[in-house]
């Protein structure tokens, strides 16, 4: 842990259990649901200075600060969250929670089903972005929040959009970063490859692998490798690895790792299996694939006519997974619905990953956008 003046410092993930059942979009009544969350800053007297951060596919509740003095890395959005940072914890009560179906403290397929005493596995119900938002709503109510700002990148942006529609009266401002109102066929295809890798792992065992000696690590690692290709772009891969060899300056003439890019992907896959659950990967990618606001509300415009918030939409030039064209679709529909929206496409060579990396430009934009809301209060 590096001691920084603008860090939230040591934090801990807490849990809250929703006392009753949640009505899922699929029609199933599901419970109990435990939610893992962290908060930074203080809720004001009016309970209207909250910002809910929504994580991407494999994120967790630990958005900022360190869990332990010995931690090498802070939370996933630490560059943006802290005193004086974009999401200024001196001003705002910042909340981050693990998504429903996840594997970092919130109820998911690896949680114990109280009826059987065993992990849910594939008996866990199929969940949607709307379901995840329902769970988050119960959390913020529990925390006493009356009005809030929602912000998220990638899948987090989908949740922020859903929040603005299904809880319109609570949401004052929405920040959508590198996201979409529906994933492209190309995006679904990559998720499908990831799921297939998991499902065809010989150790997958229909999702019942938790008490087994061997886990579907190979499948999950391949899913992560595919994912990582989509988070980068040609330029960033070329810059990072080029065609360089990993261990020597010439080919090995075998099928072990030759190229640096292979080694990188292998490393990403290997480290991912230590922190993520294969079943969660199936459920959450499916939720992402199902998300389609235009289909659900008739059109994107009629979806946004239900909102009552200000919007900020940010995209990145080299992001081909959640391309600028999809952000523009959101922006144009918001304008058609008569909503206040600002849109910026940030020049970046980092691909989809840019939303976690290009924090300086994002800080400028997000800070100013939030300050405008402060004037109006």
């Amino acid at each position, binding site marked *: 842990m590096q001691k920084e003046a603008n860090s939230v410092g040591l934090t801990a993930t807490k849990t809250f259990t929703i006392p009753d059942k949640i009505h899922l979009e699929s029609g199933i009544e599901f419970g109990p649901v435990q939610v893992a969350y962290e908060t930074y800053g203080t809720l004001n007297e009016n309970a209207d200075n909250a910002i809910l951060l929504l994580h991407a596919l494999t994120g967790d509740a630990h958005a900022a600060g360190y869990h332990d003095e010995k931690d090498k890395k802070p939370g996933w959005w630490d560059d943006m969250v802290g005193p004086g940072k974009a999401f200024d914890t001196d001003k705002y009560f910042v909340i981050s929670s693990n998504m429903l179906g996840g594997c970092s403290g919130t109820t998911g397929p690896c949680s114990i089903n109280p009826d059987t005493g065993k992990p849910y596995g594939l008996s866990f119900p199929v969940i949607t972005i709307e379901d995840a938002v329902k769970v988050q709503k119960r959390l913020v109510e529990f925390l006493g929040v009356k009005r809030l700002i929602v912000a998220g990148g990638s899948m987090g942006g989908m949740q922020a959009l859903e929040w603005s529609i299904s809880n319109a009266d609570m949401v004052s401002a929405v920040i959508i970063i590198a996201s979409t109102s529906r994933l492209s066929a190309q995006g679904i295809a990559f998720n499908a490859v990831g799921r297939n890798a998991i499902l065809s792992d010989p150790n997958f065992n229909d999702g019942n692998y938790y008490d087994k000696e061997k886990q579907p690590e190979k499948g999950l690692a391949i899913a992560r490798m595919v994912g990582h290709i989509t988070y980068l772009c040609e330029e960033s891969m070329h810059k990072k690895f080029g065609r360089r060899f990993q261990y020597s300056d010439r080919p090995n003439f075998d099928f072990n790792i030759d190229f640096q890019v292979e080694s990188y992907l292998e490393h990403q896959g290997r480290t991912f299996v230590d922190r993520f659950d294969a079943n969660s990967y199936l459920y959450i990618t499916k939720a992402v694939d199902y998300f389609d606001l235009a289909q659900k509300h008739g059109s994107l415009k009629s979806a946004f006519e239900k909102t009552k918030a200000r919007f*900020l939409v940010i995209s990145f030039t080299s992001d081909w997974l959640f391309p600028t064209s999809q952000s*523009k679709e959101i*922006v*144009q*529909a918001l*304008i*058609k619905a008569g909503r*206040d*929206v*600002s*849109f*910026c*496409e*940030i*020049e970046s060579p980092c691909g989809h990953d840019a939303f976690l990396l290009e924090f300086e*430009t994002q800080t*400028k*934009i997000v800070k*100013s*956008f939030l*300050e*405008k809301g402060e*004037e109006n209060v």
Partner: protein
Amino acid sequence: MFNPSDSLHLNYTVISDIIEDGSKILDLGCGNGTLLKMLADKKHCSAIGIDINQNNVIECIQKGLSVIQGDIDEGLKEFADKDFDYVILNQTLQSTEKPDFVIEEMLRAGKKSVVSFPNFGYWRVRFYLFFNGRMPKSRMLPFSWYDTPNIHLLTVEDFFDFCKERDIKITKSVYIKRGKISKNPFNRILTNLLCEEALFVIEK
């Protein structure tokens, strides 16, 4: 586009005087938002800007403005017909790729539109080309032929012809010469010769 600051301020004042208090306005090619901010603060306008440049967009957001990063040559299809009291195209017409399309889109989305541009018929510009035999450069047109963003330069007469061809009504004209305003002071031929910058309110 580039503008000497005195002329810029004058131009802003002219636009600010034209626009009624509390109007809903859209500024195309809004730059860093100086005009928009002025109209929002002094004229209590609800204002939206569009600009193609990331840094301009960020500056606008920092001024607390609502701004969309985009290319006005792609049109304004997300905006409904007559959505705005005024659509403004200030010193930007000559650098659009499809000026005719941009103007038609402005007239569709706005009840009224404000268009201003440097007059290529200004006598100094004509003399420059005539005597120097080179592409004119001036305070208003400081660029070289190879790096100028001004790809569709026009004269006041060209604009009159354009409006006539398309049944566009000019409801107000302001001519600026060396930092001074004159409202219809000359006959048409002299106007085209003597004004350095022209500003029109148009509708259809």
